[in-house]
């Protein structure tokens, strides 16, 4: 085996043949085959506008937090993609590809049956309550970061949470309240006229979580802050 060949970085050359599905500000997402399975590869590429040392530390931290949060969620029974491999030299995470799924965002946009939407809101509230009870803050809750498994089984709704890049562990009601606020803002701006649906989500959250009252209280407080809001106490 030629030594020079084996020293050549393998993940980047592998990514050249993989299918790029999304390019964001933080990472590129690919689909590929890994050990015979279909996988999603999340590559946190180097940010040249940052100081290199800062970039390396920050990127590594984001990668490890993402991976930790996914494991923590799964241990509690919350659906998140299985981590197959992490390359800490290129900051690539190889994750299970959730096939036969649609983002909740796309689903809400196309779903006409109001009862099914309500059942979905109930489920989301339930899953988020479970996650917060595990003290996992997602950090980027939007309907694009939730996948709905499509299948013949219409009785049970299977939700998978993805993109734990901004997640962290915290027991503070304030952090959980902010997490919900982020979702509220994203939800209402992406899906017009869904205020009642979101209220239903919050009701389900309140019913499913053991520590919800403090969190909802904080959510109300956070709503009063924010942009274009009067800070009159």
């Amino acid at each position, binding site marked *: 085996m030629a030594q020079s060949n084996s020293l050549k970085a393998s993940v980047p050359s592998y990514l050249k043949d993989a299918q790029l599905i999304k390019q964001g500000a933080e990472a590129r997402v690919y689909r590929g085959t890994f050990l015979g399975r279909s996988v999603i590869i999340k590559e946190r590429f180097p940010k040249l506008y940052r100081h290199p040392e800062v970039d390396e530390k920050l990127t590594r931290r984001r990668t490890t937090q993402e991976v930790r949060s996914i494991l923590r969620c799964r241990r509690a*029974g919350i659906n998140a993609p299985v981590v197959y491999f992490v390359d800490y030299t290129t900051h690539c995470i190889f994750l299970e590809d959730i096939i036969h799924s649609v983002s909740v965002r796309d689903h809400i946009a196309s779903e006409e049956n109001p009862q099914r939407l309500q059942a979905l809101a109930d489920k989301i509230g339930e899953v988020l309550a479970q996650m917060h009870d595990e003290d996992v803050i997602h950090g980027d809750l939007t309907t694009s970061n939730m996948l709905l498994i499509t299948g013949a089984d219409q009785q049970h709704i299977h939700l998978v949470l993805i993109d734990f890049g901004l997640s962290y562990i915290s027991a503070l009601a304030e952090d959980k309240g902010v997490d919900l606020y982020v979702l509220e803002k994203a939800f209402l701006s992406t899906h017009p006229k869904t205020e009642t649906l979101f209220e239903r989500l919050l009701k389900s959250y309140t019913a499913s979580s053991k520590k919800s009252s403090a969190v909802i209280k904080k959510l109300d407080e956070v709503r009063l802050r924010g942009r274009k809001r009067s800070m009159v106490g």
Partner: protein
Amino acid sequence: MQLTHDLELFPVYTVTQLLFRDVKNATELRKMAVNGEIKGALINPSMVVDAFQILVAANKAVHLHKIGKMKTRSLYSEIIFNLSPTNNISEAFKRFGISDSDSAVHIVLVHNKEETLNIDDIISKVDGQQIAVDQVSDLTDAAKIKKLYKVAPQEEKCGSLLDAVVCRMATKDVA
């Protein structure tokens, strides 16, 4: 019978797995692995849920070997170490490597794709019956695995035992 799979990230390498039951010379085999007569990882099949689990361990081992960051001294001991949920190397060998009293063995070989591997040579060294690798699930001790990896019943709501095991293997360094 045996299972061969290329490592997509390391196209030069291939992983071959062999499974044997009714093994009578586990002690000898262990010695051969230690002194290099058998160039492979000898694993206790009761701790293996699926061949995929072995591939994940082998992939990580080859990766760390390439960047010079293995925790153990050889590629094969690294594969065994990667299977373990803890960072204690001797514990990993004890639980995942074969012991003298074992009657089944799962052999993992990592080799150059071009190299013609003398599988028959290895098979002849094992005093036991070779079975298809996908039958390893018959030898799996799920209860022991759940206990060692600390898999709670609630986790099984979102995936299989294999998912739980592989996820822990992949995140062991930071969890």
